[in-house]
């Protein structure tokens, strides 16, 4: 019985490994809040959504498959949640029969397996009800084949037949077996028989008259005899015990499987409900195959930021089609880091088949995502800060491939601007050569102007928008690198003096008296 919700042709591996830079990505892109909202407190959901989001898919077909399933979930949110709840509940109830798998006495195992199967049969009945009434509302391949499976494999006739069989397996009238004679006339080939269900009075009398039947009765205190009878019963039921046990284990496996396939979408629903409830835009992105640089969007925002505040956040638009390098300059705290994060988040979300936090989003597919964000001074470190940055860069290089996406945030600025620019340019040139797409937030003027002068055609220049009065709009707009990075604004705010006044004249003495 196969269910394919996560892939068109196979199941999700619940033991997916995280990428090597798992922690870096989670920190830099502030993904924790996203995972938490999706999980809604459920540890299992948390693990699944994290694994799925961080293991980007590179097949357009898979992404479209998942988007279709997700769209169905969004449209039929209540029903999907109900299905999930049935699965979780069945699994929990099975766990309550908690010793059924570890018994060694066949009759006990049979008895417990029957109970567990009964639980599952009931759950199948409930799934059938949903499927019967609502399957027409679902359009995705994934759900269509799931409902078709439920409808065909678990129809009423079948469920009731199973139910009947389970009833007979308590053997209310004794275990019927046929036996033959082996070596030493010992009983062999114990074959469990199907007894006639109903015997009419007449058939009973007539057949009893003709057939020979004899009864052996156990003596009152014959304990070894009682044990012998138990062993004979076990010989009769051992085959079906194994069938039932295996079936129960497999059905349980099927429930786990379905739960694993559905869990991710439940997480998506949790996020979707919240974010649309808040009024933020959400759309299904258009993944583009091939090796051209395609990336354009409207209204893209940092969803993690939005999850953390009650107001809505600023969205951005951009068209970077044909561009392999995007350089973002501008004032501090102008929204550049946020912008960078929103790119990373959106790419991860697109490449696991989710919606993205934007009004529209088109992109080609990345093969691996890497972030290099400026770190706080680590006081415990033995390396110098630039050392640490370069070391971090180096470890990333091992894992990069053509088609990877690299996000730099104020990298290599832990030195003077000339040296920093030099280092950055060398790295960027090499990465471009290798076909890696780069976003670089930098206030190293030498670096940005270098690319403005030498590679204007392949590079998109963006800037944090700043109004004439110096305030930020937190929008990132197109614009070439400017001479100053408006540190003036900050200085003014903190020191309360215009920077020119502070510089003219003596120096620190003057500042003190101001």
């Amino acid at each position, binding site marked *: 019985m196969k269910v394919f919700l996560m892939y068109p042709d196979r199941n999700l591996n619940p033991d997916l490994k995280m990428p090597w830079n798992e922690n870096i990505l989670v920190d830099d892109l502030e993904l924790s809040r996203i995972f938490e909202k999706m999980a809604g407190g459920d540890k299992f959901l948390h693990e699944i959504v994290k694994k799925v989001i961080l293991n980007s898919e590179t097949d357009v077909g898979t992404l479209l498959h998942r988007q279709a399933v997700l769209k169905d979930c969004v449209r039929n949110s209540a029903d999907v949640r109900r299905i999930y709840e049935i699965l979780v509940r069945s699994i929990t109830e099975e766990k309550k029969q908690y010793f059924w798998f570890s018994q*060694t006495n*066949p009759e006990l*195992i049979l008895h417990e397996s029957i109970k567990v199967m009964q639980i599952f049969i009931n759950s199948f009945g409930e799934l059938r009800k949903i499927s019967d009434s609502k399957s027409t509302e679902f359009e995705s391949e994934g759900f269509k084949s799931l409902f078709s499976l439920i409808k065909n*494999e678990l129809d009423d006739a079948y469920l009731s*037949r*199973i139910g009947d*069989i389970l009833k007979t397996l308590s053997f209310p*009238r*004794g*275990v*019927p*077996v*046929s*036996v*033959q*004679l082996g*070596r*030493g*006339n*010992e*009983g062999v080939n114990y*074959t*469990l*028989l*199907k*007894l*006639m269900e109903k015997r009419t009075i007449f058939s009973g009398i007539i057949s009893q008259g003709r*057939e*020979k*039947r*004899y*009864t*052996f*009765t*156990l003596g009152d205190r014959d304990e*070894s*005899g*009682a044990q*012998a*009878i138990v*062993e*004979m*019963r*076990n*010989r*009769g039921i*051992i*085959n*079906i*015990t*194994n*069938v*039932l*046990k*295996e*079936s129960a*284990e*497999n*059905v349980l*496996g099927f429930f786990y499987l379905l739960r694993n396939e559905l869990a991710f979408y439940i997480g998506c629903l949790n996020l979707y409900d919240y974010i649309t409830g808040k009024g933020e835009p959400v759309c299904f992105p258009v993944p583009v195959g091939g090796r051209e640089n395609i990336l354009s969007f409207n209204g893209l925002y940092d969803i993690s930021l939005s999850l953390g505040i009650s107001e809505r956040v600023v969205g951005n638009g951009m068209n970077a089609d044909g561009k392999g390098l995007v350089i973002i300059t501008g004032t501090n705290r102008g929204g550049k880091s946020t912008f960078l994060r929103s790119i990373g988040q959106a790419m991860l979300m697109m490449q696991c088949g989710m919606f993205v936090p934007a009004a529209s989003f088109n992109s080609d597919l990345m093969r691996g995502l890497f972030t290099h964000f400026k770190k706080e001074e680590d006081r415990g470190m033995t390396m110098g800060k630039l050392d640490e940055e370069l070391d971090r860069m180096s470890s990333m290089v091992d894992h990069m491939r053509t088609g990877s996406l690299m996000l730099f945030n104020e990298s290599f600025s832990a030195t003077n601007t000339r040296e920093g620019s030099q280092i950055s340019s060398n790295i960027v040139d090499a990465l471009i050569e290798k076909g890696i797409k780069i976003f670089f937030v930098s206030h190293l003027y030498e670096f940005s102007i270098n690319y403005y002068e030498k590679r204007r055609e392949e590079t998109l220049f963006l800037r944090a928008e700043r109004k004439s009065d110096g305030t930020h709009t937190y929008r990132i707009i197109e614009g070439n690198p400017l001479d100053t990075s408006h540190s003036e604004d900050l200085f003014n705010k903190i020191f309360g003096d215009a920077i020119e006044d502070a510089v003219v004249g003596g120096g620190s003495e003057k500042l003190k008296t101001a």
Partner: protein
Amino acid sequence: MSVKGLITPAYMTLAMMAEMFITENNRSDKLAFESILYVETENKSDFREEPPDFFVDLNLDQVIKAITDPKKDYKLDSIFYNSLKNINNVTYRQNVFRDLQNDSILHSVKIFTEKVEKMYRYLSGIDRLYKYQKERWLMDSAEIYCEAVQTLFKDLTVESPESAGIKGLLEYIGTYINSESFTKLRDETSALRTKLDAVRFTMIIKTGKIVVKEYNGEEDYSAEIKGAFHKFSESGSVMKKVRIPQFSGMNHVEAAVLELVAKIYPETFQSLLDYSQRNNDFIDSTLGKFQKEIQFYLAYIDHMAGIKDVGLQFCIPEISEVNRNVFCYGGFDIGLADKLSKEKKAAVTNDLVLEDDQRIIVVTGPNHGGKTTFARMFGQIHYLGSLGLPVPGTGSYLYLFDSIFTHFERSENLDNGRGKLEDDLVRIKAIIDRSTSNSIIIINEMLSSTTLKDAVKIGKKIVSDILKIGCLCLYVTFLDELASLDGTVSMVSTIVPQNPEERTYKIIKQPADGLAYAMALARKYGVTYDDIIRRITS
């Protein structure tokens, strides 16, 4: 003897079992074949049940025990205690060994004996069984027996044995298989088996009752259940299956059920009882005897195998009643070889050759050089050869002796009040008195408790007495003088010249040179005369 009247206590051996289920009138008198061990009579009045006196000295007690232990139940020891006097019996056995060197013949024979052993296992304790159970075990045993006999005949016919023994057996079986008694047994057994196989009954097992009735063709429910749950099965599932322990043997509940089944199939079960009455002594006595006697060969073959594994060889010796120019190439002490083979080591081999009129081998040389082992080897090889067995070595010519006498060192026997010298002399005199020219005497160190001069005098006298008797003798001694007497051949245990301490265990024909050895040893430790003069500073 019938099955019914039997008491079969636990200590019953398989050999004894063979006697019980055999009836004398099953023998086919026409054929000459009776025994795989003897083709003509030996002098039966001399049949020993106790080991000969020289066994302990030659370590043959340990050797025989090692050979017969794995087949304890067959009590083969006494066969090994009786060397053959009739050369035709020796040849008879040797030829059987030759046939058994053919792996297919050996395999067929082994298979046959294993089946017969299984049959005896079925039959042991049969009387303690329930009604209808014991009769069925009897039938099952007869089934194995019939199949085993027929298969042995078929296999041996294909394998074309050449020895009189196995050929005789094959002829015997051929006639036996076609006899009325065997064909009747086989056909009755087969017919009864068919009837019993057709029995199929139904039990409805409740917790305190079992209803037993005819099987009415009801369907196999587990097949239906399996089909219904099929969609929940996974191909290639490696899930652990529930298992129930397999018991053999019937409990009283099953026995009671069986009696009820007998009521449902009265004709079949009465046939079973009748069969058992008619056939409780179905084993042919000659074949039963063969089963026991062939173990003599099988036990020895198994024993040789371990020693052959480390590269040593056995050969079938030529045995003469007349010619005493014995030789043996590549021989070894079989007891020592067996012990060493368990450590994956091969014992050192030695050659021994007597030419012209040489009768007495005098063995001298350093202590622990392998002289005693060599003496044992000489005795063992002759003894084993006289049993018709393959002997250690690559080629061998032996003498069919009438007795072996050994005179090995004994610690002072305080009981008989004699001193050691007196004891030695009394014993050797007894040996000399009893020996004939057809005997073999093996002396391992004597006269060590007297002066050298006297020892040489006595030793020479003993050697000359033995020469007068004219029998074969091997004499291990420290008296080099004896090695140069007329009529003796000298062999010496050798050392590595550069390292006098190192033993080679090789005994070679050369004059005694004990002094040369002593000198080398003294030089190594710096205690020659010159060394001592030099080293002691006055």
